[in-house]
């Protein structure tokens, strides 16, 4: 039963992922990306991590994609539909895709995959919080500083335009 659900979500995720790059209309691409992100959230539920699933929907689907759409809607649609999407040579695009694929495959084969140790770490909200503020405190702080820097930079750029 669980396998069936996994296959369903994975298939829809891949199909919608393809639709993101093949759709001519940027708004349709954005919609396909939303579908794809929701499938990923469903996969998190299958991995017994409802917290991550809720956060995925909350942040990516509920906030990031809304901002994406916000920008896309102000685009000039007729121009955007006519433009070839990556405004660079085909050879370059293929190269980037190959490098990314090699990275993913390396990641898949090198990292030890499999089930998490039985009776070990349970991904509840409490344990995630505990981990973030003990074992992974340093990466957590680094990420927040980076986000803060991005925020300040965005404000500075927006102010200069005036």
């Amino acid at each position, binding site marked *: 039963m669980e396998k069936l659900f996994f296959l369903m979500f994975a298939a829809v995720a891949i199909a919608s992922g393809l639709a993101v790059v093949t759709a001519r209309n940027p708004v349709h691409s954005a919609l396909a990306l939303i579908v794809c992100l929701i499938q990923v959230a469903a996969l998190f539920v299958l991995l017994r991590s*409802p917290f991550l699933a809720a*956060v995925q*929907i909350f942040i990516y689907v*509920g906030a990031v994609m809304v901002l994406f759409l916000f920008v896309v809607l102000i685009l000039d649609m007729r121009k955007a539909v006519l433009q070839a999407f990556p405004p660079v040579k085909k050879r370059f695009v293929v190269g980037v895709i190959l490098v990314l694929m090699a990275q993913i495959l390396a990641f898949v084969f090198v990292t030890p995959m499999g089930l998490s140790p039985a009776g070990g770490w349970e991904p509840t909200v409490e344990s995630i919080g505990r981990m973030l503020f003990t074992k992974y405190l340093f990466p957590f702080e680094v990420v927040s500083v980076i986000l803060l820097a991005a925020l300040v930079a965005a404000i500075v750029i927006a102010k200069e335009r005036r």
Partner: protein
Amino acid sequence: MPDLATLLEILIIVVKVSVISGILFSLPLPLTWIERKVAGHIQVRLGPWRVGPHGVLQPFADMVKLLIKEDIVPERADKFLFKLAPLLSMIPAFLVFVAIPFGEKFAIPFVGKEITLYLSDMNVGILYILAIGGLGIYGMILGGWASNSKYSLLGGLRSSAQMISYEVSMSFAAIGVVMLTNSLNLLEMVRSQSGSFLDWNIFYLPVGPVWFVIFIIAALAEINRIPFDLPEDEGTLAAGFHTEYSGMRFSFFMLAEYVAMVTVSVLTVIMFFGGWNPPLDISIFHLVPPIFWFLGKVILFIYFFMWLRFTLPRYRYDQLMTIGWKVLIPLSLVNILVTGLMII
């Protein structure tokens, strides 16, 4: 072949889902009538009066009108998205009710089987509700864009900006309640408020009332009601994002809006007003089934929202943004600090 007990469980879930969706689908009928009556009496007039005694059949007449009205799709619209948008705004409004508890347990008379008065006891309940509730915005943006009309697009853009701004402070209010009750689970939230009304989160002085005010203001903006109904500001935008919609498609947007109002009232009751706990811990109050306490409080809040709608004027767009970013968010940040200090 699954055994009988599993089948029974599945059957119970199916029945519960259909009962809840049935109630939600038919809710706009009484709610529109009550809303127009409240409006009438606040503005010293009668409200609906002609169709049936005191106009009670007015919503049915409206329903028939909406059903037989011509369904117009603008010629230059993005047909697919135009048809999808009302559903995108309605489905999340219903999905939220998966996680909302209406009470603890209820024994069916004569059978002796206990059923729970909630569909799913999620341990991330409040997070799920905020996440799914936030998705309704896509119906507005995409509907506004797909209509291919200036008014609709501006309405859609306004609504997305408004909802993103106020989602932040609404989530902060939820964080505050989570800090007070130590749980993301809505059932746990209600259990921790049992006792007299002094145990309710709103009376958790001094931070409780502040969280309540932040939550109710942000919630008003999220469900697009006066004083924050700028996405459909008829003075400047015709009807906002649903200018081009007619008939049933339009009523889907209205349905989503009414369900969202109920959701917000239910959430307020669960988070701040003790859910189904009676206001005083005395035996007479415990004779009343808890679900009635719950419904009574929810109805009070629904009335409160209608009352506000016909009492307050609409804010200007810049005022709306100022309230969201310069008042509510700093206030909630300070309040998180105070709440944290109090808990320690």
